[in-house]
């Protein structure tokens, strides 16, 4: 096939094709995606008051709560350990965001990655205190992290 008199397609022409494609993505698809994202965020914001966790949640009967707990157990057993950890992480993040405690969430994430990298608890606590984090804040972050581990 001869596209517009093109005899051979060399790498540089390939890159030009990519550049035009990229240009199309940036100038047409990305703005559309941004508008769609904005609409999604607005819809989510309007929906939030009705279904937010904690105080906003409707009061349920004991039977409903027991049934929900039993269902949660079944689901939990079915899930892999990894999925549980992921869910716990997500729940913790949501709870911290709801409380406006993003700083504590950052501490929990730091503790998680520092422990993974081989640092011990005392070294992590010392490093955080050296950066001005108060003792109770560091301890709370460790206890929040232990809920994840």
């Amino acid at each position: 096939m001869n596209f517009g008199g093109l005899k051979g397609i060399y790498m540089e022409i390939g890159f030009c094709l990519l550049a035009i494609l990229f240009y199309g993505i940036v100038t047409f698809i990305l703005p559309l995606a941004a508008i769609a994202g904005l609409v999604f965020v607005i819809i989510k914001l309007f929906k939030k008051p009705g279904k937010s966790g904690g105080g906003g949640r409707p009061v349920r009967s004991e039977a409903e709560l027991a049934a929900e707990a039993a269902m949660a157990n079944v689901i939990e057993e079915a899930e892999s350990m990894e999925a549980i950890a992921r869910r716990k992480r997500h729940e913790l993040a949501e709870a911290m965001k709801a409380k406006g405690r993003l700083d504590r969430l950052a501490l929990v994430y730091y503790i998680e990655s520092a422990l993974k990298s081989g640092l011990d608890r005392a070294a992590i606590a010392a490093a955080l205190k050296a950066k001005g984090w108060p003792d109770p804040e560091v301890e709370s972050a460790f206890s929040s992290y232990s809920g994840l581990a």
Partner: protein
Amino acid sequence: MLEFTRRYFAAAKAMYEAHSFDRTPTPHIVAFELFILAMAAFAVWWMWKNEKKGVQRFCIAAGGLFLHQFFTSPMWHNYKMGWWAYIYQDISWISTLAWATFITAVLVFVDRTLPKLKDWQRFPIYLALLTPLSTAYEAALLKLGVSGYAPEVRQAMSGWEFLGVPVEGFVYVPVFMALVVSFTKYWSFYILEKPVIPLRRRPWLRSFVVSLAAVLLFELTVEPMVENRGFPAWSYIYRDITVILTGSWIVLVWLAINVVDKFFIHFDLLKKFAAYLGIVFVAAMPAELWLMANGYRVYSPSTVAAFTGLHIPFTQLPMEVAFGIPLYFALILSFVKYWEIILDN
């Protein structure tokens, strides 16, 4: 669909032909390319065998290099490397591999031989090793007739040379290397999942000083690409670098970093970086458009010659400038953040 494909290929062909230059290599150039490829292949193999996520780190170095090459390509030329060597205009992937090999080799060598030194102490050692290595590479390219400089760059040179390489290279190379090394290190932290300590109180002043150093140094090296006109005479500090414009970029980088680090403290390095870049881009793109439209920013003839003619819809902003803004700031932001991370951890 076939008609669309035909037009698409025709546009790519036109873009290719608009930037034709001598691609015919000499036997010496081919031999040199084979040597570079062998060296890069060995580096990749060694990194794969001996370093954690070594191949990814090599790719990060190559990516950082490519960003810099893409952004600054109107300042120099790379001819006669053979049709196979080019990926876009005269930017060569073989050259990208050569630079990535140097950077990776030096970083690994210094990190392994001086493990007790802190990161900020190793940084000048990286630059001290990379500068002569880069000078030797540049001297070889000049000797082979591959490398050359745009007229605006030659005009800005003093004319003094060392081993056939302009002495300005001894300023340009460490700055360019500092940016690419920082980029490589920042993203290595991310892929190696290095714990980065969250700060309770942001060091605003220190952050400003690092942002100032990054923007000012980078502006010095890319100064021949664009001319800043019409600013008050008192604001020019060196050639056409104006404290108004450069100061605005410094404040923008500084604010973006501090706002994101303050209000999105829980984000990981990737999300934070995307947020910094997003803020900077949203502010810098309309500013650049306005400055260009009003004659305050005039791109040099070599830079304009490299434009493909594609514009951002509904504006007169060339695609290269729109893409160049995030590339320019990606290197600066990674430099500032890398320095903040190594000073705090």
